[in-house]
């Protein structure tokens, strides 16, 4: 089952903040976040591990609520380069499936 992302799309002006949410119906071992520019491959942003460890981007933060199987990605003071589609990927504890959501299209305008 794909994790559920919200919102599906968001439009910002440069400098504004955004939050993208990801939720899963299964217990999670880790949550991944990626950004994809049009016509390109997804690129890694961040991993959040069960237990609180985070690895990733310096200017982007995220949270992981293990009990609720939810994660949020926080984009602050957005830049034009933040535009793209954001995907959360989830990995359960019992197998090796890395499953992605449908994505959130973020558009940052000047």
């Amino acid at each position, binding site marked *: 089952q*794909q994790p559920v992302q919200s919102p599906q799309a968001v439009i910002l002006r440069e400098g504004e903040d955004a939050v993208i949410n990801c939720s899963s119906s299964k217990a999670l071992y880790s949550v991944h976040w990626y950004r994809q520019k049009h016509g390109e*491959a997804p690129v890694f942003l961040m991993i959040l591990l069960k237990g609180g460890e985070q690895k990733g981007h310096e200017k982007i933060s995220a949270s992981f609520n293990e009990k609720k199987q939810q994660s949020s990605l926080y984009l602050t003071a957005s830049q034009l380069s933040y535009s793209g589609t954001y995907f959360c990927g989830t990995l359960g504890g019992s197998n*090796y499936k890395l*499953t992605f959501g*449908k*994505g959130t299209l973020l558009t940052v305008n000047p």
Partner: protein
Amino acid sequence: DAGITQSPRHKVTETGTPVTLRCHQTENHRYMYWYRQDPGHGLRLIHYSYGVKDTDKGEVSDGYSVSRSKTEDFLLTLESATSSQTSVYFCAITGDRGNTEAFFGQGTRLTVV
């Protein structure tokens, strides 16, 4: 950049023909994945591998098979291509299970006519 390449990058094929896509890595990573990307559906997992000759199905595996006879190569085969399999296919690799980032190949655009 991680060493992961997909071939071919573009392919047009006819309905009913077999097609094989190749994912090759030079990172010696254990886990490899095949996804398809379609508008409105995001990235959907087709099959994945957790070691040589160890594979399992993803969410949309019908009509696809995979093989992994060595660490560096993961093959995706469409036994008899259909128009519904027209898509962009991505391969991804990751090392330690869930603890490290996944690297994606550049994608293969497959058109079934």
